């Protein structure tokens, strides 16, 4: 009797397991076919010379060797990407928090403003890029026309190597709405009692912000920093649509170099190696941020 029950239990468990896998199978299949297989393939290709027409030829570490020793565009693209990420990520976070603070006030029509600020996030990057090309156009663009009205001769923006990266950073602030929404949710989670206690203790608005608000939203800042760094290192479409990596390679980002090698020069092996180096760089940076998070991220439950 006992043995029968045990057997029945095992069968039921097996059937449950099977059902579980069956329900998860669409995702599992997607993961194996569209994520794991391409990842493994690209790792293999990164050790080969592969132009998509002929079979890949094993060349060991030559792709990586060329990348680090004799590809000046590799280093140039890293510098451009790091410059972009180092400036755009903190600026994006600061701007997102600032707008969230403004939108956290209890005034009339706030829902309308929240929608307006979030709206640019849902516009496709291609449309945003085209729009900003008009705004930043040096002769008749909106920005230079406005600057001209107040007596300032605007720079060449995207056509000037000294301004092109900064122009793209400025443009990236257009889509801080995504982060803003998360900060807004975090701000609304900060207990009112903390502010009341601080008011009784005589704390001013700045003190409240730096001693209460900011520490309380650090988990959100941490999340946005990680996703921002990952996104920043993958910057591509703006440069591809707006500047073609120019002028003088000033907006030639890592993603653009990877794209050029893969789809312009058909050096898939080399492009795969570039992709893996980007993955390692992203992992290392994420790891550093995670390691330092103990020092600055505050979790309420801890």
């Amino acid at each position: 009797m006992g043995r029968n029950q045990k057997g029945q239990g095992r069968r039921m468990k097996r059937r449950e397991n099977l059902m579980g896998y069956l329900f998860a199978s669409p995702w599992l299949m997607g993961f194996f076919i569209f994520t794991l297989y391409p990842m493994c393939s690209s790792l293999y290709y990164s050790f080969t010379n592969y132009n998509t027409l002929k079979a890949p030829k094993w060349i060991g570490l030559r792709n990586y060797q060329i990348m680090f020793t004799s590809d000046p565009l590799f280093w140039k693209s890293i510098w451009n990407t790091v410059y972009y990420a180092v400036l755009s990520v903190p600026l994006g976070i600061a701007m997102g928090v600032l707008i969230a603070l403004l939108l956290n006030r209890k005034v009339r029509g706030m829902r309308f403003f929240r929608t307006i600020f979030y709206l640019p996030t849902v516009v496709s990057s291609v449309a945003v890029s085209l729009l900003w090309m008009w705004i930043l156009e040096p002769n008749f663009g909106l920005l230079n026309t406005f600057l001209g009205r107040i007596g300032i001769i605007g720079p060449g923006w995207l056509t000037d190597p000294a301004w092109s990266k900064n122009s793209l950073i400025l443009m990236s602030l257009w889509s801080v709405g995504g982060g803003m929404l998360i900060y807004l949710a975090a701000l609304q989670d900060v207990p009112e009692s903390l502010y009341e206690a601080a008011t009784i203790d005589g704390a001013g608005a700045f003190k409240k912000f730096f001693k209460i608000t900011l520490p309380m939203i650090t988990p959100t800042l941490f999340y946005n920093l990680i996703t921002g760094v990952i996104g920043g290192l993958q910057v591509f479409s703006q440069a591809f649509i707006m500047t073609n990596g120019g002028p003088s390679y000033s907006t030639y980002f890592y993603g653009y170099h990877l794209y050029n090698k893969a789809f312009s020069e058909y050096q898939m092996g080399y492009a795969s190696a570039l992709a893996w180096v980007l993955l390692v760089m992203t992992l290392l940076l994420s790891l550093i941020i995670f390691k330092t998070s103990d020092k600055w991220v505050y979790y309420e439950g801890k």
Partner: protein
Amino acid sequence: MADGILYLHALSTLGNVSFRDYVLNRGSVFFTDDSKPVVNSGANLETIEWYVEMTNKYGAKQVQSLQAASSTTGIDPFLAGFVAMEVNVVDFYKKLSESDINYGVAPMPGLKEGENATQGGSFDLEIFDHGDQKKADAAWEFLKFMTSIESQQYWASENKWPSTNQAAMDSCTEFNEDPVWQVILEVMAQTKVTKYEPTAPNWWNLLAPELEAAQLEQKTPEQALNDAQQAIETAIENNAVLGN
């Protein structure tokens, strides 16, 4: 205007012309016949110095912003009425013919009297052998269809792009009666052919930013050409390993 003659100063970088075309049209090259890069040769240095001087007369930033305006709006500066003259490719005739502006077409003058300065490339149709004879035969049939006189006349007429199939061009009354087509066909005799460089197919992408740096006075023309030469030599070495 002087002595009753109208002198037209054209900004000779607008439209579809670049340093590359001026180098080829003065009879110089970027690669030797055996595909060795000679980007920083004396003749090319002279040409880049002239080119940079010419663009800087108008201001490199002004030139760039005019080009940017053109690419942002998708409107050609000549068609928009910003400039009185520009150099362009033959199939620009399609846009001209669809516009309502009053225009004329003339061959681009060469370095010496009586010479025209035109250059052109082409494209090829290739059949890749995957080992499937049926597919190769079908591809071959398609290739025959695409290169037939009827197809070539159709594409040339639709795109205003001359066909390399001479029989197609000779036997079509549209081409023989149209004065613009006549100019296009006349300059063919002197047109220099651009060469595909299999060891460095993307060599222009390595030279163009250096040219921009020279125009923006970030580098001297000589330094820009030397850096481009170095970059192309390195690319050729790398391509030998990486393939392309």
